[in-house]
C-alpha cells in the first residue's frame, strides 16, 4: 500500500454515518474511495454540490457538474446544488461534519498552515480558512515529512490558515491528536516504530503507554 492510500484509508475510518463531509483537492479527495456507500455520507464540494459522486462514465461528463478542482464528477441520488453563499454558509455555520485538508505544517498548538509559502507559492486560501474555522471536525491528511523536513513542527513558520486547533492529523507514519496538552501520538502506521516517528517529527509529541498500530480493513 502506498503512503497516500494508507492515509486515505485511515482518514476514511473517521467518517460517521450520515455526515456531511468536505474533501480537499488532491490526497484528501482519495478518501471518498474508502467510505462505504452504506454509511449514507454526503460529500460536499464547496463550488456547490452536496452529494458528490464518482467520476462519470466515459462520454457522459457534464461541464456544469465539477468538483472544486474543476474535474468532472457525478452526483448521488438525493444530491442538491447550491450557490456559493449557501455552500459557505453550511461550512461556516457548523453544518459540515468534517473537513479533510492537506497541510504544509501543523504545530504543537494544533495550528495548521496550508495556503502560502511566502515568496514562493501564493495560491490563495480558497475555502480553507472557512473550512478550518467552521467545520465540526477538521482532519489534516498529509505526508509526515516533505523533502526530509518534518511537517509536524514546534510552531508554524508559514502563515496560519486559522486560529482553530485541528482535531486530527493523519500521516503516512502516524495518527496524531492535537489537544490542550500538546500533540498526542495515537497510532503508528503498520511497521513503523515509536523511534521512527520520534526521529521524523520536529515537534514534541505526548506518547501514551500504548500506541497501537493503525487497523486498516
Amino acid at each position, binding site marked *: 500500500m502506498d503512503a497516500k492510500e494508507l492515509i486515505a484509508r485511515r482518514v476514511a475510518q473517521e467518517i460517521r454515518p450520515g455526515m456531511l463531509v468536505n474533501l480537499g483537492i488532491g490526497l484528501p479527495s482519495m478518501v471518498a474511495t474508502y467510505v462505504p456507500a452504506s454509511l449514507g455520507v454526503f460529500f460536499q464540494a464547496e*463550488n456547490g454540490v452536496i452529494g458528490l459522486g464518482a467520476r462519470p462514465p466515459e462520454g457522459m461528463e457534464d461541464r456544469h457538474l*465539477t468538483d472544486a478542482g*474543476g474535474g468532472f464528477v457525478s452526483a448521488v441520488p438525493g444530491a442538491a446544488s447550491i450557490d*456559493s453563499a449557501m*455552500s459557505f454558509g453550511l461550512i461556516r455555520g457548523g453544518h459540515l461534519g468534517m473537513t479533510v485538508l492537506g497541510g504544509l505544517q501543523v504545530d504543537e498548538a494544533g495550528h495548521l498552515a496550508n495556503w502560502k509559502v511566502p515568496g514562493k507559492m*501564493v495560491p490563495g*486560501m480558497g475555502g480553507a480558512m472557512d473550512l478550518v474555522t467552521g467545520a465540526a471536525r477538521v482532519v489534516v491528511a498529509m505526508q509526515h515529512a516533505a523533502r526530509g523536513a518534518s511537517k509536524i513542527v514546534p510552531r508554524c513558520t508559514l502563515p496560519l490558515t*486559522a486560529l482553530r486547533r485541528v482535531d486530527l492529523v493523519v500521516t503516512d507514519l502516524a495518527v496524531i491528536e492535537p489537544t490542550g496538552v500538546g500533540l498526542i501520538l495515537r497510532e503508528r502506521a503498520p511497521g513503523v516504530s515509536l523511534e521512527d516517528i520520534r526521529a521524523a517529527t520536529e515537534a514534541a509529541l505526548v506518547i501514551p503507554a500504548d500506541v497501537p498500530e493503525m487497523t486498516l480493513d
Partner: protein
Amino acid sequence: MKGALTPEQAAELIPDGASLMIGGFMAVGTPERMIDALVARGARGLTVIANDTATPGKGIGKLISAGAVARVIASHIGLNPETQGKMISGEIDCELVPQGTLVERIRAGGMGLGGVLTPAGLATEVEDGKQVVEVEGNRFLLETPLKADFALIGAWQADYVGNLSYLLTAQNFNPVMALAGRTVIAEPESIVPVGVIPPDSVKTPGVLVDHLLVHAG
C-alpha cells in the same frame, strides 16, 4: 431589461479600467463569449472580482493572458501560474480573500448591508488592517461590501424579461454577483419565452438583469 446585446456590443459597454464581477468557479459557469469579446477589443486595466482566475486559456485566464487585468480580488489563483507570475512581477495587484468571505462581501454589496462579521481569517494575515468587532464575547473580522461597475453572469436559461436559472455547480458565484453589479449582463446558454422558467426555478429575478447576450446562433 434593456434588451439583448452581441458580445461585441457588451464589450464596448465596458470601458477600460472598469471593475467587473465575473461568475464561475474554475471557468465553470463563466460567461466565455463575453470574455472572448473583451479580449478581442483589447480591454485594459480591468479590476476582476471572481472566485479564481481559472487556468490559462479558460475563462478569466484568457483575460489574464491578454494583459487586460490590472487588479484581481479572488480567493484562489493557484491553478493559474500566469496570475501568480504577474502578481509577483507587480503587473497585477492581487487581493486574496477567503472564499466564504468573498461571497458574503459581494452579497453585502448587492443587498445593502454595511458589512458582515466573520470568524474566518481571525489571527491570520487576513486580519491585517481590519476592524475586529466583539459580539457576545467572541471576536470577528468586519468585512466590508464589494460592488462592481459590471457583473458578467453565466446562466443556463434566461427568459425574455431576464429571469435566470442555473445548472448544478455552474451556479456558484453567479446569483450573488447579479445583485452587486451596477450594470448586470447575463450570458445564458438559451433564451426562452416568458413562462418557460417556473417562478420557483428562477434564481436571479429579471429585474436585476440589464442586458442579455444574444444567443450563440
